[in-house]
């Protein structure tokens, strides 16, 4: 099902008029692809889709969940975690608190990866973890902290790279057992995070397009990885402004491995590796 530019505009208007979501400043190519996928999966045309959105809030909410992307994995991009471990988190070790915001946390693997790393660095108790996403279903999954073993088995290798090995010293090996942090049940096909991890973060539904800072706090570290690739230049700038104004001076913003700040906000940060540090 081919979605024209005009179809997409109708779809965006329908969401804007009948829900609280505004996708006007999403990157239109990727949004178009997502809408095409929804139409194919549900065997609908654009008119049918828009009619159903008008008629049912629940349906509209479901569609919003389907057009947003929820990919995440434990310790995705080990280089990023090495950077956090060796150069970013140590900057905060003398803080009284370390406030961390995972913006667009999806099903939570990044949040748990962070808590595991903080614990290994003996910074866990100082940290306050805030995690948000647009999609309430993925937040429920994140709160539960339970994942399919067979989909995540490959990522245990990332755990080894980040937690057990030290890329700066190949002779170092910390034999941290997985069950310090999660239970693996192969028969039930589950990886379940330990209670001391699941009960720590504050998870909230949040829309980067319009919601601002939900928490009465500023942040030492904001992670927003592989989210802004779905936004256009305008919305990216709004989001950078939001992050910049809610970081402490010298606070860090971490984007995805292949995301970068284009435009005016680039000059307000300096870079440490791929991390942006507020000037």
């Amino acid at each position: 099902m081919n979605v024209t530019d005009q179809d997409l505009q109708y779809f965006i208007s329908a969401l804007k008029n009948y829900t609280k979501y505004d996708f006007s400043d999403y990157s239109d190519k990727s949004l178009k692809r997502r809408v095409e996928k929804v139409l194919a999966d549900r065997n609908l045309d654009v008119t049918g889709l828009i009619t159903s959105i008008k008629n049912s809030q629940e349906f509209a909410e479901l569609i919003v969940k389907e057009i947003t992307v929820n990919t995440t994995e434990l310790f995705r991009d080990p280089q990023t975690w090495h950077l956090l471990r060796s150069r970013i988190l140590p900057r905060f070790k003398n803080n009284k608190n370390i406030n961390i915001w995972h913006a667009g946390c999806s099903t939570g693997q990044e949040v748990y990866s962070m808590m595991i790393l903080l614990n290994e660095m003996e910074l866990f108790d100082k940290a306050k973890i805030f995690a948000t996403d647009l999609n309430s279903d993925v937040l429920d999954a994140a709160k539960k902290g339970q994942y399919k073993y067979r989909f995540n088995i490959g990522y245990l290798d990332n755990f080894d790279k980040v937690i057990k090995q030290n890329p700066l010293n190949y002779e170092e090996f910390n034999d941290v057992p997985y069950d310090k942090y999660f239970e693996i049940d192969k028969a039930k096909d589950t990886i379940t995070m330990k209670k001391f991890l699941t009960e720590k973060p504050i998870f909230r539904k949040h829309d980067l397009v319009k919601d601002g800072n939900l928490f009465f706090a500023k942040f030492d570290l904001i992670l927003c990885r592989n989210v802004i690739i779905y936004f256009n230049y305008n919305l990216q700038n709004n989001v950078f402004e939001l992050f910049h104004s809610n970081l402490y001076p010298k606070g860090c913003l971490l984007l995805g491995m292949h995301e970068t700040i284009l435009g005016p906000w680039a000059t307000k940060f300096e870079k440490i590796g791929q991390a942006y540090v507020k000037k």
Partner: protein
Amino acid sequence: MYKAVIIGGSAGSFQVITRILHSLPPTFPLPVLLSLHRLKHVRSGFVEALSIKSGIPVVEPFDKDQIKPGRAYLAPANYHMFIELGNKIALSTEEPVNHSRPSIDLSFVTAAQVYRDKLVGIILSGANRDGAYGLKKVKDLGGLTIVQDPLECQVKTMTEASMKLTKVDHVYSTNEIIKFLQSIK
């Protein structure tokens, strides 16, 4: 007359890609888009390996990067790489397509939509059918389609699937692909 070259490959294509990149002059007038599958564990080091012998710079692009002639753009591990109007790269972490991320089909389809008859699409050795549909789109929109000669491929599933779906313009050996690319002015 062409505006871009896009190459898809999987198992058995690494050495072919290396030879092709090695043969390109620094003045090569087009961008080269590379959508290649790699082993799950080989996530870093690939771009460096390709760069060593390449005649043109090889980069793993950032999202929304401008595409420039005389450069090779390698789809980063674990991302889809799309080509957008305005000659820009778009990356995405959407779910794998046919178990592949990057999906060669998605790269080819979006490149075909942008460059249409100004695109050269090349499918190399590979162990699955990803790319066949993408190459068909290149052909449908007027682009030139080339597959590596299956007789020469380490694994010929991908090239054979492509030839089954599309009446490709040329079936070339690696040497012929190189000669063709070098003739582009």
